[in-house]
């Protein structure tokens, strides 16, 4: 799952940017009859395959056999046991993850641009490595490390830290794990944004006008990176809201784990929540591709694509 999100992020703005450009495909194909039929059939079949599960899920949630149409699965959601808690927990985790990953990545990437180009490969590898480790493998390592707490460190002050990060009400350990998982996407998004602006020139210009360093970063650089910051935040939010593996194996109950836990007793509601979460993801990504059509990002899009591909 991890590997796919960046592709989407990268290509969506690219698609948006590519759309206004007249397609470079002349009538050579269009002139022929058969490809057109073939194309229509392919698109229709693909459309059916991708739409049927969505429509069927919706029908499943509103149609109770023998009772007709009922929207109970949706209306009963707010009152459902654990819904609010798990959703709030997921949103809180998402906010913390977004904040932590941006706070870590933005200074590092800006620094690499301005003054330490030699660090660049190191930072890139560090940010990309989590792609190689599937979440399920990462969680085996995390449980092992967490077990060290009671086994070896119970008499040291570190033990308190181990307990604190596993606090039921706000498991910091999940934030740390999610930040690791999110780093590749945050890196790609930010790197694409930084590529679009001439950072050294901007910094030199601002500095020679007498701007202080905090001013340069907050008022000059970050506004230029708005679209890619938003992109990174959206991707991280989608990742955290849908994450199941790590949370369930560490024994916490954010949103995705909650959906599974109610599926036995309230199948209809679990499907309803799934449909809703798809809609939310959809809206987020649409917003993301809108953000990508801001002129400055659109200009940068081709570079983003070819580069990130490598």
């Amino acid at each position, binding site marked *: *799952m*991890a*590997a*796919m999100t960046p*592709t*989407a992020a990268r*290509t*969506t703005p*690219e*698609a*948006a940017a*590519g759309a206004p450009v007249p397609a470079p*495909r002349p009538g050579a194909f269009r002139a022929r009859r058969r490809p057109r039929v073939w*194309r229509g059939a*392919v698109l229709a079949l*693909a459309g059916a395959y991708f739409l049927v599960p969505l429509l*069927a*899920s919706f029908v*499943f949630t509103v149609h109770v056999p023998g009772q007709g149409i009922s929207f109970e699965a949706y209306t009963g959601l707010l009152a459902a046991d654990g819904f609010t808690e798990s959703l709030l927990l997921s949103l809180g985790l998402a906010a913390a993850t977004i904040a932590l990953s941006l*706070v*870590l990545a933005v*200074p*590092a990437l*800006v*620094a690499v641009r301005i*003054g330490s180009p030699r*660090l660049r490969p*190191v930072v890139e590898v560090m*940010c990309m490595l989590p792609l*190689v*480790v599937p*979440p*399920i493998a990462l969680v*085996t*390592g995390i*449980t*092992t*490390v967490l077990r060290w707490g009671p086994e070896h460190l119970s008499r040291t002050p570190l033990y308190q830290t181990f307990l604190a990060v596993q606090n039921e009400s706000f498991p910091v350990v999940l934030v740390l794990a999610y*930040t690791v998982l999110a780093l590749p996407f945050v890196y790609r998004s930010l790197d694409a944004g930084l590529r679009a602006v001439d950072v050294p020139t901007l910094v030199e210009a601002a500095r020679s006008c007498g701007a202080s*360093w905090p001013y340069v970063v*907050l008022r000059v650089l970050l506004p230029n990176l708005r679209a890619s910051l938003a992109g990174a935040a959206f991707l991280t939010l989608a990742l955290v809201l*849908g994450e*199941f*593996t790590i949370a*369930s194996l560490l024994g916490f109950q954010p949103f*995705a784990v909650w*959906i599974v836990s109610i*599926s036995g007793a309230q199948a209809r509601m*679990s*499907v309803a*929540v*799934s*449909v809703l979460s*798809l809609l939310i*993801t959809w809206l987020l*990504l649409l917003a993301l*591709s809108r953000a990508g059509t801001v002129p400055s990002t659109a200009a940068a899009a081709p570079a983003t*694509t070819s580069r990130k*591909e*490598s």
Partner: protein
Amino acid sequence: MSATSTAPHPPGTAGGASRRRRRGPRTWLAALPLLAFTGLCFGIPLGAIAFGAVTRTDPATGATALTGEHLARSLQGPYLGSLVGSVQLSALTALIGGVLGVIIAQAVVTSGSAGLRGAALTASGVLANFGGVPLAFAFIATAGISGVVTQLADLGSLGWNLYSFTGLTVVYLYFLTPLMVLVIAPALDGLRPQWREAAQSSGATTGQFWRHVGLPVLAPSLLGGFVLLFGTAFAAHATAAALVGGSVPLVTLKIADALSGNVLTGQENVALALGLDMILIAGLVMAVYLPLQRRSARWLR
């Protein structure tokens, strides 16, 4: 440790020459939190996996000894079966998803309609991200035992079973195919119409064009896409966990079982060894993928 505190390590008001020299080491500091974080929160668990996979701690004496036992066990019996099952499922879904993705992308790209293209790529972006638990439940509602389509089309009497290898393949294709569309569409754009015109005016048939021009140019992208799909399917856990539980042997499900203590104690190290196996396979996948992507990028400019 915010952007404000780390990024600005002002070179002060020193003159130009000294500023130049000082900027290097100071900006380096801003990258330090990131490196420290990944070292701590990523490096330590990774080290724990590698260490636990190759050592054994005697519960009586507490002595730790190097052993290949766990890795050997992770490549035997049911564990080997689960690894093979995962590889088979990933290879099959990557192959089918890759072929379908190329066909759909070609249909979209050659349609010449910017609107269709934009819509298809945006939809692909959404669907490629629609994995995990929600997807599993959408399919249970659609094609599960009491699913809408199952009942309408009476799939049950046709031998359809969602909670099987075939069912899992159909579900995986739901997010792998759009992923392939996303990956391959830029490559298909890179097939310039001039090349086809040149081939046609030299008297080449469509088949010859594809065999001698199209496929060789696309080959790195196709392979790269296949490998990416394989890696994605291989690492997927949530969808399978919510859908089939344990009825299909997959390495991710086996690791989860071993971790949550559903099996005998002392399996943690085998889980670590399986995790190491997965990392090695995923690392291999990335090692193939990155050079291929670099190669294909040459044509996409």
